[in-house]
């Protein structure tokens, strides 16, 4: 039996988070009334002209710096000509052979902490099309041009991904990067990142490439993985039953979990690309690149290294935290305040994440300010409060706000560690439960937990558990 290997390259369209469109002053906000974000330029009235949004250029440069790529000193825009109702000019302004960002690399990480550098061929700027709406109007198609002209950065990877899981990891890593750079809002369900995958298979060890198919528009990490898994299996079945893979575009149907042929690519489209005469070549001086460089945040790879090597987090913890740049920013702020980074990571990946999921919100609007969470963790560390009390303070902070120290004082939650007080409680409990005392003294050590529980109950959980243990053991001795 042949051992097959997949060869996968991804083209990811990233919507840039500029306020206005790439060639017009219309806003880019999502979910507006159809065509309310489309101005004269976006609907391609006669006589209008495109003017390049410098913010989009800066964002593309930022991405280029992040993947350590060459930034073109001069690049240009081309017209890609085709007719479609949601493409108002009858051409898309894109970049054919002079992309703004040249070759770079993006490391993808695996669960065991290992990683692989994936080559990025290029990234270029272009404009998004509008949307055709076929469902709402009986027998008619609605055109919504709100999205038309939204800036896209199309990021093309080398065909260096070798499995569906690697492709998904790459997509996830890219998502983490562009959201960390704040050049994309990363909202996959709003189409802020859309992925096309080119996939072929070949027997392991063979250098030549097999015929490929292209899967269009898979827009979640999970669907990238599932669509490619399906497509790899499909191609294996085709080849092993003596058939041939046909060069074509396929669509992934997530409900049926299968890819279906959309159109043949045999007669390749002629887009009649040529330089757009309405736009001058874009000159990118070093000063512009440097002015972008100074705005670069800490990149995910550097952050991962810092978490693991400086803060002592595990690969898993570091990976989870940097998945969401808002989450890692929250973590950084908490860890700055708290003495124990590991404890901060535990709480953020545990209690905080659970509460976020429960309330269906995300790290942008955590109701507890990072300095308060940091203080809370410090109060556990310095034994002002017990871990159990900390959980209840956490819930209070989450729902009502307030300050950690204020809550501790006003509600008297300070840990009881006065030996005399605790000895009093313990002797009372020993006299209340003579049967259990007998059992312990007969050797049933496990019953110690029962006494700890009773002490905690009597002190509303405030007793210092270490001290309670010591006193109990001493007092219970026969």
């Amino acid at each position: 039996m042949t051992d097959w290997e997949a060869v996968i390259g991804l083209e990811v369209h990233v919507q840039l988070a500029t306020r206005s469109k790439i060639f017009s002053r219309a806003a880019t906000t999502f979910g507006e009334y159809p065509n309310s974000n489309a101005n004269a330029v976006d609907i391609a009235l006669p006589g209008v002209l495109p003017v390049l949004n410098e913010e989009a250029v800066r964002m593309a440069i930022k991405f280029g710096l992040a993947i350590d790529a060459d930034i073109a000193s001069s690049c240009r825009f081309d017209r890609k000509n085709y007719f479609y109702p949601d493409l108002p000019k009858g051409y898309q302004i894109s970049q054919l052979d002079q992309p703004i960002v040249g070759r770079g690399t993006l490391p993808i990480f695996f669960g065991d902490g290992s990683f692989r550098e994936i080559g990025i061929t290029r990234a270029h700027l272009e404009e998004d099309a509008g949307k055709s709406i076929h469902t709402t109007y009986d027998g008619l198609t609605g055109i919504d041009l709100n999205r038309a002209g939204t800036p896209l950065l199309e990021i093309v990877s080398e065909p260096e991904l070798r499995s569906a899981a690697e492709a998904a990891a790459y997509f996830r890593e890219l998502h983490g990067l562009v959201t960390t750079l704040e050049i994309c809002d990363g909202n996959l369900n709003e189409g802020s990142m859309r992925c096309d995958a080119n996939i072929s298979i070949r027997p392991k060890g063979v250098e030549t490439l097999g015929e490929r198919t292209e899967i269009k528009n898979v827009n979640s990490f999970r669907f990238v993985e599932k669509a490619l898994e399906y497509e790899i299996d499909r191609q294996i079945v085709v080849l092993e039953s003596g058939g041939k893979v046909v060069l074509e575009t396929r669509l992934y149907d997530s409900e049926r979990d299968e890819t279906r042929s959309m159109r043949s690519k045999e007669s390749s489209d002629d887009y009649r690309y040529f330089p757009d005469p309405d736009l001058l070549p874009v000159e990118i001086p070093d000063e512009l690149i440097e002015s972008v460089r100074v705005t670069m945040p800490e990149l995910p790879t550097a952050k991962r290294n810092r978490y693991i090597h400086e803060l002592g987090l595990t690969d898993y913890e570091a990976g989870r935290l940097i998945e969401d740049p808002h989450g890692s920013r929250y973590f950084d702020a908490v860890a700055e305040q708290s003495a124990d980074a590991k404890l901060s990571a535990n709480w953020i990946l545990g209690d905080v994440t659970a509460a976020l999921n429960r309330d269906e919100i995300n790290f942008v609007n955590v109701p507890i300010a990072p300095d308060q969470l940091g203080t809370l963790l410090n109060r556990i560390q310095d034994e002002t409060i017990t871990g159990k009390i900390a959980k209840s303070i956490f819930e209070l902070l989450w729902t009502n706000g307030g300050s950690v120290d204020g809550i501790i004082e006003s509600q008297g939650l300070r840990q009881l560690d006065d030996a005399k007080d605790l000895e009093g409680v313990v002797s009372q409990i020993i006299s209340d439960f003579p049967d259990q005392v007998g059992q312990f003294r007969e050797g049933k050590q496990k019953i110690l937990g029962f006494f700890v529980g009773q002490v905690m109950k009597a002190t509303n959980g405030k007793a210092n558990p270490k001290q309670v243990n010591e006193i109990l053991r001493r007092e219970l001795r026969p």
Partner: protein
Amino acid sequence: MNPYASVTQLRSGLDNGDFSAEELAHCYLDRIDAAKDLNCFITVDAEGVLDAAKRADKAIANKRIGPLTGIPIAHKDLFCTRGLLTSCASRMLNNFVAPYDATVVDRLKRAGAITIGKTNMDEFAMGSSNETSFYGPVKNPWDRECVPGGSSGGSAAAVAAGLAAACTGSDTGGSIRQPASFCGVTGLKPTYGRVSRYGMIAFASSLDQGGPLARSASDAGTLLNAMEGYDPNDSTSAIADATDISSSSRALKIGIPTQYWSDLSPSLTKVLEEARRTLESLGHQAVSLELPHTNAATAVYYVIAGAEASTNLSRYDGIRYGHRAAAPENLEDLYQFSRSEGFGSEVKRRILTGTYALSVGYYDAYYLKAQQIRRLIRQDFLDAFGEADVILTPVSPSTAFKREALIEDPISMYQQDIYTTPASLAGLPALSLPCGVSDEMPVGMQFIGPHFGESSLLTLGREYQDETDWHALHPADNHD
């Protein structure tokens, strides 16, 4: 009131109270009505121009006077004008009322000009005879059997016939200069980038320039001052010094390119030679020079202009505005029928040739090759301006020809542009001005200047017109 008065004369007449802006507007409106057979206008905005004239009279009374306050002008019907039909002389846009003003229109308004209407033209500015208009051909006021030239034929004929003080036009390969020459008026194609293209419906983006058609170089300068300047809405517009024609000219070297003069008919040669002698008599020196790639210009022009037009006109798809075929069965039909019905045959011819030139397998041989030669043509001029300050050439191989003489023969029609396309390809300013008559029809000459050299072109033109009266000739009124 003299309908053939210059803008300068009209300005002092209005400011001195010799006549009101309203009277002036009425004068032109009456003449437009009387000269309907010329078919110069697609839209006459009588109500709008009279309202604007009344406001202008108030402004003049209050001494708030711009350079063009109360002066009625007309815009070629490819400049978008808010609230007015902007048809590009095409069935495709027969229903298109622009929701915004082109930058040129806006700037002329701010200078005080009032809009009397929109002039006829070749459909989408594609033509050299004004015979491709959906609204029918324009007649030449000098001889109604003849064409006015194109594509700004309506504008040129309207100025010649005294139907407006001046007009805007656009020039892609000669569309201001050739009709100016055929109608005996002064027309300027500015340097590419001097005048904003925003709101001027595109034909060929790398060549299109708006400019004035007027009675004199001086009037053209006044209009250009209002029209020119950087526009943030047009990435290709340039930051350049304003045109200044107030200073007097120094002695210039006037280049005579042999390639433009050698094949000229004896009658035109005679007129052009006379013009050259006049310029020499003004103290300028004629020098012979070479522009070796001139012969390729027309072919290069038609490849590039067609290629750009083929995609500029893709937006006319029947979806959002403009002509839409009735009851299409499917999307393919909607496109095919809307465009087949909406565009005339010359527009289709250029879309098809342009599409061909950009297609895979032909791109290198046509579009890319044309761009290479375009650079050589530009270099020819840059070299020539090392030897001369201004280049003097004919505008057209002939005077205005008869209607239908060339319309069935596109190649001959395209050859009409042989003297105007090179400056277009090089992005240079060029002034077309009357310099004589041949068989009772006006003959024009062309001054080509270096980039942003409008000031010296217009100053030289003003000097020449101070010395001669060719620009002051006008056709007899033909009111039957």
